[in-house]
């Protein structure tokens, strides 16, 4: 990474937006991940992965969204067509951040359909690689609009495997592990005795009550809930000037939408 120029010659930065806290919270999923493939699905996770690669996780591998592994400036450094990608998943050297149409307290995830699978009310994407991902490499989730429709008591179809089901598999689930869930309200993990979801950090401006209100199951909330960390100035500049100068992140997480 090139060293950012001294900050004092530039205009002062406006405070971080909600979208930028989300980028930071997503980036943190890959902290300490080492030399593995980061597979972000969706804009904010992609910005997070690239930010992590440019700063505290320089060994990460990233794709161009197609079949090339590319450096931060887009220089190809490898080839990863879908068949190799699926093999890499099975080998485990990867941390994916997927979306979720529904997710429950143990991290079971649904992207297949809403309603009874035999007669869906709303057909969605399908299983995609969620069963493969969750049994083979660390998996995190990004949810741009935290609501009771997404954070549900029970998902209609289990695509990504959660901790309760993994526990039932015994040794076959030895490579299972969920990282974090990031939403527009906060970051969540499974660091509880029964691996149920816990509020790990609140984005600035969000209250615990707000999160509880938007969550369809009983969330573990520690006595002291940390705030999602502040972006460093260099990180903020990277997000605004290098990674997303057009500001597409604000369309995924609008600033005024949440109090």
């Amino acid at each position: 990474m090139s060293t950012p120029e001294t900050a004092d010659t530039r205009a002062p930065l406006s405070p971080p937006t909600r979208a930028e806290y989300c980028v930071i919270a997503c980036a943190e999923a890959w902290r300490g991940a080492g030399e593995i493939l980061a597979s972000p699905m969706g804009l904010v996770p992609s910005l997070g992965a690239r930010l992590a690669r440019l700063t505290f996780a320089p060994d990460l591998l990233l794709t161009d969204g197609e079949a090339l592994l590319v450096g931060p400036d887009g220089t190809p450094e490898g080839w990863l067509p879908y068949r190799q990608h699926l093999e890499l998943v099975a080998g485990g050297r990867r941390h994916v951040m997927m979306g979720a149409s529904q997710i429950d307290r143990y991290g079971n995830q649904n992207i297949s359909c809403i309603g009874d699978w035999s007669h869906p009310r709303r057909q969605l994407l399908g299983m995609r690689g969620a069963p493969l991902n969750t049994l083979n490499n660390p998996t995190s989730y990004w949810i741009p609009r935290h609501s009771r429709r997404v954070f549900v008591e029970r998902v209609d179809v289990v695509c990504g495997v959660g901790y309760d089901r993994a526990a039932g598999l015994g040794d076959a689930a030895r490579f299972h592990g969920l990282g974090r869930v990031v939403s527009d309200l906060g970051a969540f993990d499974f660091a509880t005795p029964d691996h149920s979801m816990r509020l790990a950090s609140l984005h600035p401006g969000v209250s615990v009550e707000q999160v509880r209100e938007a969550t369809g199951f009983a969330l573990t909330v520690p006595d002291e809930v940390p705030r999602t960390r502040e972006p460093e100035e260099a990180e903020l500049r990277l997000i605004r000037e290098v990674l997303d100068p057009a500001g597409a992140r604000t369309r995924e997480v609008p600033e005024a939408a949440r109090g």
Partner: protein
Amino acid sequence: MGDKTMSADEVVSRLQSGMTLGIGGWGSRRKPMTLVRALLRTDITDLTVVSYGGPDVGMLAAAGRIRKLVTAFVTLDSIPLEPHYRAARERAGFELTEVDEGMFLSGLRAAAHRLPFLPVRAGLGSDVMRINPHLKTITSPYEDGETLVAMPALWMDAALIHMSRADRLGNGQYLGPDPYFDDLFCAAADAAYVSCERIVDTAELTKAAPPQSLLLKRLAVTGVVEAPNGAHFTSCSPDYDRDEEFQRLYATTPWPEFAERFLGPAEEAYRAAVRKWRKEQAG
């Protein structure tokens, strides 16, 4: 060595209702759309379709040609949910075998290797096992004793593929970044029909591209069709990108209206209708 060139209509004349049909490509990428459109012009129906699904599945489902679909997803990529597929699925228009992407790959490999199944870990613990009660598990005979999913082979009567280039003998070449799984589809099928942007002399194939771009071997290919723009409106890099504007039109137009306007009596009618639409957009 025979000349395997034929027309798209000749390809579909070899297909029958009730067949199991594999379709190459991935999502809205390098799909054999000229062949799919030719298929839509026949009355062939009752198909079992095996595909990493895109608009190929959307169109066949919308037209009511699918009895059973085997897939891991159906998407238009830049438009995540395929609206015509969704509509067909929500009115329970066909039977569905929904598996994971990796399981699907194992099924292709099993068929290509003439094996009844291949073991995979993916699927365990997920609802793949609940919604596919025909799937069985197998226990490792070695001391680990691990239980795995026995993914059955995905056999096909015929596979439809689109390539960048091919010769008249059936050697197929992709010039884009990803081969997807097209060679496996060919190996898993009794007959493989390959459309391509351009048929070239065999010697031409390796003049400008490395030998590893020769994905399909003629021994696995039954017929070759020259179909310029044959993946439209999906992508066929480097010859063309996805036609996003036209894909948006496809995604937002009710199926009967789209079919009426664009799926005329021949592929030339499709091209003419697309040209006309483009002119209207410009003017």
